[in-house]
């Protein structure tokens, strides 16, 4: 009988026996090889085998994964917050055969420790209503290119990539080592009929963060002060008549240096380094090349243990720009609410 407010499944029924026995009593963990974590507790060791997934998966894929979990893990598995699959293996003997079978089925094993793990991303053209680009496609292209860093775990530290398909920046893009963000760059084209039909005008006016939208009572619609619009697309969320997508001018910005862990340095926002790259499907070569350039620069220059942002903050952002050769423009300088705190109120700097 269907029940209202059932709540989620009870996680306690989904824990493998070794987890139940070591629950809350884990002593330490090791990384026997990239893609495998060994957690040890009083009842013994658990081996987690981590595989990439494309996040967008079909039910048969899930069934295939389940078959592997049945064969090697007594039917237990979990997912990570970055869309990885983790097979929870309690018999060490099963680790190598499982890895072999994963790789054979196109489930690459890796993404643990000082590696580049799976990309957290949004829906993009697949299922979002305000995208400035596709998310799954860029993710695929970027990770094909960075594949070796998913398989290795000897980078300076871990590196987290997120991909958000519009300025909403869903999916923690604002605090990622590298964030790829779909951006609009032109003022919404207004469909006044659609606005009249489908929109509460005061809400539409109020939703604009820069007060660029003004009521136009004569037309029962709105007008836009073009030079105030910063293309956030919030108005499109409020009204189907505010068309923000623009095939010629939408594209991708790259922000870097965000981090969420408190280890060593405080959590920090990602910062814009490339304001715009064109949408060039299916494989977005400009984006993959830019990401690769930044990643390789970090690997070549960072100290052991330094996250991307920690490295840039140590050398200084001005040095990052001179080192990377990425051009610095007026677009890099914040002009929104908290801009002032980013202005260099110091005469001490590098070139």
């Amino acid at each position, binding site marked *: 009988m269907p029940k209202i407010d059932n709540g989620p499944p009870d996680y306690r029924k989904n824990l493998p026996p070794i987890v139940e026995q070591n629950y809350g009593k884990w002593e330490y963990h090791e990384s026997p090889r990239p893609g495998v974590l060994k957690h040890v507790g009083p009842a013994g060791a658990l081996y987690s085998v981590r595989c990439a997934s494309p996040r967008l998966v079909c*039910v048969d894929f*899930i069934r295939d994964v389940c078959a592997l979990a049945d064969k090697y893990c007594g039917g237990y598995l979990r997912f990570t917050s970055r869309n990885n699959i983790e097979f929870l293996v309690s018999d060490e003997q099963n680790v190598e055969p499982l890895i072999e079978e994963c790789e054979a089925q196109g489930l690459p094993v890796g993404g643990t420790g000082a590696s580049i793990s799976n990309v957290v991303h949004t829906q993009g053209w697949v*299922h979002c209503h305000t995208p400035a680009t596709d998310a799954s496609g860029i993710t*695929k292209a970027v990770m094909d290119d960075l594949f070796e860093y998913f398989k290795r775990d000897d980078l300076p530290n871990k590196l987290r990539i997120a991909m958000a398909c519009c300025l*909403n920046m869903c999916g923690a893009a604002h605090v990622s080592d590298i964030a790829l963000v779909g951006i609009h760059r032109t003022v919404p084209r207004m469909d006044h009929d659609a606005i009249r039909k489908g929109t509460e005008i005061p809400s539409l006016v109020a939703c604009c963060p820069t007060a660029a939208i003004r009521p136009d009572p004569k037309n029962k619609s709105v007008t836009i002060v073009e030079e105030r619009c910063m293309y956030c697309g919030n108005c499109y969320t409020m009204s189907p008549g505010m068309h923000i997508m623009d095939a010629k001018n939408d594209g991708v910005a790259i922000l870097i240096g965000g981090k969420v862990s408190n280890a060593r340095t405080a959590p920090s926002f990602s910062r814009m380094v490339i304001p715009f790259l064109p949408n060039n499907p299916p494989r977005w070569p400009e984006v993959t090349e830019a990401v690769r350039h930044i990643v390789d620069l970090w690997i070549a220059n960072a100290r052991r243990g330094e996250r991307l942002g920690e490295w840039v903050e140590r050398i200084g952002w001005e040095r990052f720009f001179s080192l990377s050769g990425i051009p610095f423009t007026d677009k890099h300088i914040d002009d929104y609410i908290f801009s002032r705190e980013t202005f260099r109120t110091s005469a001490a700097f590098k070139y």
Partner: protein
Amino acid sequence: MAEKRETPQLDELEKGPWPSFVTQIKRAGEKNAMADDLLGLLETSYEDKVGHWKHGGIVGVKGYGGGVIGRYTDMPEEFPNISEFHTVRVAQPSGWFYTTDMLREICDVWEERGSGLTNMHGSTGDIILLGTTTDQLQPIFDDISDRGFDLGGSGSDLRSPSCCVGPGRCEHACYDTLDMCYDLTNEYQDEIHRPMWPYKFKFKMSGCANDCVAAQARADCSIIGTWRDSIIIDQDEVKKYAADGLDIQMDVCHRCPSHCLTYDKDTQELSVNAEECTRCMHCINVMGKAIKQGKEKGATIMIGAKSTIVKSAFMSWVIVPFMKMEPPYTEFKEMMDRIWDWWDENGKTRERIGELIYRLGMGEFLRATGIPAVPQMVYRPRANPYVFWQKDEIEV
């Protein structure tokens, strides 16, 4: 099924070593017309470089105000099977632990009544069932409910809480994130399923300051495990790390942000000035066998995180430096009630709690919720003298 679709653009994304989402859509499309139409629509987007989804209308299931997101293509004539293509959010078990039997139950329902495509998982943590028609929504709910699942949150409600793997597989968990996540989700079923607030609200629980679910960056209320006493150092294990070649001075002491660790190279002993330790997890991350967290465990409660739209991204900041975090979490829940009341009373439409506190001020927030001001709430005090003095602080 019609003849094979031509998708030259998307075919390019089946090349390369990374698992391909295109392959997934194609595989679903072999037996599902919705998935096949999705493939065609996406190829169109790849050709003309715009998305082809319109706003959702209001769709739902009986008894629920959220959990389903309406979605319609703007090319219904070309792709009639996805003229309606709604999302169903299914609340995940704590820590995304599954048995294969459970997963197959979901797969069976979704193969029968939806596109067969899913996200495992959405950014908030739910299982995302991607694409179905309006008339299938109620049957889907009935079926998953029968199998022990429930809908997650959407709209201006409490979104499905989520948590790190916690005590299920981590020696760093300072409280039981899995239990707290399950407890709060059950406690707040009404808040999750029936939107009633100015805007969305998220809980995320991380067992330690490494914050593996990015709670501080994404959750209106971030609950970060910590401890109140000193780290514990095992000198024998320190010596083993030294013997294994770890440069303790450089990689541990030098990187410690408060420089509270001292390593004696001769005796190979490591000592801590516990008062100066900020419990950032760095040293424990590097030499976890030798350095353990303290014994008095609990959590730091932080508030305010959200993504960029519209008043900039916010990260959560400290409101309670340390709280014991044990079932039934009464102290925490009572505080949340006061916070929600204040937000509900004062928040504008689509104003997250962090934006509201920024607009009205931390002083106002603290006075209204009865949370005591402590220096841990700020990196540094105000630089201006613009204090709002209260009536009882003034001589008449």
